[in-house]
């Protein structure tokens, strides 16, 4: 009887395929970026050994991107600021989103210390964006009467989760209101 139960145990343990499919393996990639304190960050290497919840934003976008940032903050808060999960918001507007701009933007959202904003050299940033299939395109530019530049960017709406080996295992529509609950549910299955 014991032998039969032992033989059938794997059906219960692995029967549901709890290991998620790998969408992208970033283990072999490496990008030199800057965080909001102008510290050099190597992505994803510096985050290996942690789960990463990552969204993509630009600070001149107060609506969709604020929803994405808000969702990242909400996930972190509702998970009670977990030590093994790092939160990242990377900009696809690196020329304007300098480290200090990102820091000010983060302050408005009361981000926790385990939350990193990423920017850097444009070529490096866009290479990183390509590697995770995040698209962005300037959709409108104008100069106001007082000479100020006005611009908007069309962009992907994405939050993704990386496992401890820097593999993308989940992707979501980043600005959707139900996303925090789904991300938490998914993370709790694999942590």
């Amino acid at each position, binding site marked *: *009887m014991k032998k*039969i*139960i032992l033989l*059938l145990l794997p*059906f*219960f343990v692995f*029967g*549901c395929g*709890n290991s998620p499919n790998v969408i992208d393996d970033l283990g072999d990639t490496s990008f030199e970026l800057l965080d909001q304190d102008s510290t050099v960050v190597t992505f994803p290497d510096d985050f290996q050994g942690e789960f990463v919840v990552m969204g993509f934003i630009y*600070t*001149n*976008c*107060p*609506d*969709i991107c*604020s*929803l994405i940032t*808000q969702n990242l903050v909400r996930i972190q808060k509702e998970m009670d600021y977990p030590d093994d999960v790092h939160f990242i918001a990377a900009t696809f507007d690196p020329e304007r989103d300098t480290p200090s*701009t990102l820091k*000010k*933007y983060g*302050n*408005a*959202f*009361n981000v926790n210390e385990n939350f990193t904003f990423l920017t850097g050299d444009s070529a490096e940033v866009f290479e990183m964006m390509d590697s995770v299939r995040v*698209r*962005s*395109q300037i*959709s*409108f530019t104008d100069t*106001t009467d*007082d000479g*100020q530049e*006005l611009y*908007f*960017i*069309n*962009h*992907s*709406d994405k939050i993704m989760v990386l496992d401890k080996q820097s593999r993308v295992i989940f992707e979501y529509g980043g*600005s959707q*209101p*139900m996303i925090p*609950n*789904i991300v938490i*549910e998914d993370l709790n*299955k694999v942590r």
Partner: protein
Amino acid sequence: MKLFRHVTFLAVLGVMISCESEQRNVEGKAEGTGEEIENRVRPASSGGTSAAYFSYINSLDNADTLIAVNSEIAGLTQVHEAYETEDGMMGMREQKQVIVASGEEIIFEQGGLHIMLMRLEQDLKEGDSVRVDLEFARAGMVSKMLPVNP
């Protein structure tokens, strides 16, 4: 052998039940998110960009048109609409005019029509209040005082 068949059946049943319980009900998750109308301005830093969310009911007997928006805390204020492009990207575009039918409620909300407050002239912190002026073709000037909330 009979015992083996019974245990096998129970095992398969167990796997089916446990897999079933893991299926995600996305629709169910969305239900609890609420569709409350917001009444706030998002916190932001001086020089940055924020947005105002609220609703307005046109109580006139005629349709009205929102023709201008302004706020003294922003260098530039515009009505914007978030939209999805044909190739699946998200974008924003200015709405120069917004027509509101008689008795209709217009909702400025995240992910939809909203008031953009650009080039902020001061930090907007929780607890602050922001006045947004709306100029309608028929109703004239309407002011909204909105709290700053994350």
